[in-house]
């Protein structure tokens, strides 16, 4: 039986953008007026998706939207995502710093968080005094701290400076001390956000080792947010990827990292070869009915994924466009039949699309490579420009046992 220690159900968090000031009062009054009449908060219905780079139309934004996940006891869950994806907001909700707008988190254990360097450290006080203060802030009693004081000081490696005010510490030493205090906390769930960034390699190793001990021997659960992929890889047993406030991937650490790395390619990389320097292929992108969005890489959930190609040139006759799907290790798996019947519009543009044969791909990572040429002359070659991750489609793939063969043919089985 799964021992679920933490469960997030439909967590959403809405933030108001811009200045809090003008209009705050009127919104507050309106909200209150709706509440009095027993109606729903009018501002909950609106709000844009949390995308940092695009301009939105609403004053409200959903930093998190419908987050669902479960964490088992003793698991180390890595939470990864780009800046502004909602990781820290999620951790803030988990550590009770701020309340979710909707949804709930249920927990079977105490949650303690180590969210940033030297939270609650007072520069004027000594290291020793700060251990007590910080420990108490994190929920330890004075007695507990006293019993672990020597261990904490030893782990931090700051013994020499322990009676010196913390304001004289280097930032690395502050982290060491802060981490040492939290590491000796004994909550069932420990939340850690980007704390190891400042420590040196030696300390990072020590800290990761300690966290592994915490989860393996202590049977405690750790939620770990980091941009340090090596740390996530070595520490976490499972990972979730956040993108624009939504969970876009949940699974093994390796797969989560894979997914995250691929979604990190921001622009389509086109490599040109051949004689002509002009850029014929203007834009290449994947278009799925599910996401309705231009993507440089895509995690395949639905089978209707199209590759869109925008070309521009004055003369199309005799040209051919072709694509090949490569496996992650570089083997060419399948080529798509070449296309020649370009239909250009008034400004010499041509827009073509092709449905990708996702249904024959097994679960895994693939690359797409394209060629644009006339007769034997290679005009333009796009080298591994699009990465495709295909999710398991049937229970054999899900079980991880795998299926023989490079491709998966979707045959029509039926009962006779």
């Amino acid at each position, binding site marked *: *039986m*799964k021992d*679920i220690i933490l*469960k997030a159900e439909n967590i959403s968090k809405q*933030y*108001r953008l811009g200045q*809090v000031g003008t209009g*705050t*009062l009127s919104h*507050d009054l309106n909200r209150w007026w709706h509440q009095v009449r027993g109606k729903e908060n009018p501002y909950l219905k609106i709000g844009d998706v949390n995308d940092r780079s695009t301009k939105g139309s609403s004053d409200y934004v959903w930093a998190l939207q419908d987050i669902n996940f479960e964490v088992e006891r003793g698991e180390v869950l890595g939470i990864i995502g780009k800046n502004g994806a909602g990781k820290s907001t999620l951790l*803030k*909700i*988990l*550590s*009770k*710093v*701020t*309340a*979710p*707008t*909707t*949804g*709930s*988190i*249920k*927990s*079977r*254990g*105490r949650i303690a*968080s180590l*969210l*940033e360097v030297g*939270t*609650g450290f*007072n520069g*004027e*006080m000594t290291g020793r*005094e700060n251990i*007590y*203060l910080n420990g*108490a*802030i*994190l*929920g*330890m*009693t*004075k007695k507990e701290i006293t019993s672990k004081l020597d261990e904490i000081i030893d782990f931090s490696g700051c013994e020499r400076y322990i009676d010196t005010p913390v304001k004289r510490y280097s930032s690395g030493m502050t982290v060491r001390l802060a981490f040492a205090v939290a590491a000796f906390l004994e909550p069932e769930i420990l939340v850690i956000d980007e704390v190891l960034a400042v420590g040196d390699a030696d300390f990072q190793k020590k800290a990761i080792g300690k966290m592994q001990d915490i989860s393996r021997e202590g049977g405690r659960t750790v939620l770990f947010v980091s941009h340090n992929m090596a740390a996530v890889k070595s520490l976490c047993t499972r990972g979730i990827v956040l993108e624009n406030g939504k969970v876009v991937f949940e699974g093994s650490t390796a797969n989560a990292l894979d997914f995250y790395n691929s979604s990190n390619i921001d622009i389509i990389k086109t490599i040109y070869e051949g004689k002509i320097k002009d850029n014929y292929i203007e834009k290449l992108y994947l278009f799925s009915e599910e996401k309705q969005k231009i993507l440089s890489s895509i995690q395949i959930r639905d089978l209707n994924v199209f590759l869109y190609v925008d070309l521009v040139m004055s003369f199309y006759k005799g040209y051919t466009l072709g694509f090949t799907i490569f496996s992650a290790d570089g083997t060419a798996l399948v080529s798509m039949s070449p296309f020649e019947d370009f239909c250009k519009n008034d400004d010499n543009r041509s827009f073509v699309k092709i449905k990708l044969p996702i249904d024959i791909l097994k679960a895994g990572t693939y690359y797409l490579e394209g060629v644009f040429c006339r007769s034997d002359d290679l005009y333009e070659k796009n080298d591994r420009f699009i990465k495709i991750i295909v999710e398991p489609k049937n229970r054999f793939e899900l079980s991880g046992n795998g299926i023989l063969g490079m491709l998966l043919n979707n045959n029509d089985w039926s009962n006779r």
Partner: protein
Amino acid sequence: MNNLEQKNTTWLFEITPKNKFFTLNLKEVWQYRDLLFLFVKRDVVTMYKQTVLGPLWYLIQPLFTSITFTIIFNNLAGISTGTVPPFLFNLAGITIWNYFTACLTGTSNTFGSNAGIFGKVYFPRLIVPISIVVSNLIKFGIQFFIFIVFYIFYYVQGAAVSLNPSVVFFPLLIILMGVLGLGSGMFISSLVTKYRDFSYLIGFGVQLLMYISAVMYPLSLIEEKIPNYAWLVHYNPLAYIIETTRYMLLNVGEISILGLTYTTIVTLVLLLVGILIFNKTEKSFIDTV
């Protein structure tokens, strides 16, 4: 089966958007009592670090204010303090008044000055305002000590100063003052998080409030001189506390049981409302601060 079993095991706690209307959670505050103690220690230890005069600053402020008041209000304006030396009269009022303002301004800044730490870790937020009231009590103790020194000095000099027997209830009066500061401070702290206007209001509001709190004049004087505006002082719970302080310590003025009952009721209501709003704010303040 699996699901059934899971439903049966209870969750330790749940984080939800809606707050119950009134959650005091004193049990949690009690669990964090060591933190309260450490906060008080931090406040006291670090208050005057890297100053030359150190805790002497605690004494300089009330002494100089009393001297100024004595010159302006008693010598210049001619307010009579009866047989009691005006300096001692003013010092008594200022000492307890200072305790109130320190509690009020301290707690009203709770969210602002602790935003950093509140944004990172959870602990019962109530600890912070309580710790402010407690650490100010220590500051009050030091200031009260200097009052006693002057009291003895005047007594030895042969001035007509005497304690009223009711002085045994003085600790209760201090607690009342602290709770009044706590309640109104928490109330304002919650408003300040969203509307900064209140932090400006507090700045000069406290100054104005002092003039209607009978700090530098006896309560009876206001009825005598400006009866039309006496209600301002009469509806001010602080005035009764300050008047009673002088009654207990210096045996001047009057004690009004009705006034003190009124003060106690106002204090308790303010405390209740303060905690209520404070609890409501602490859940989401980090988004609006």
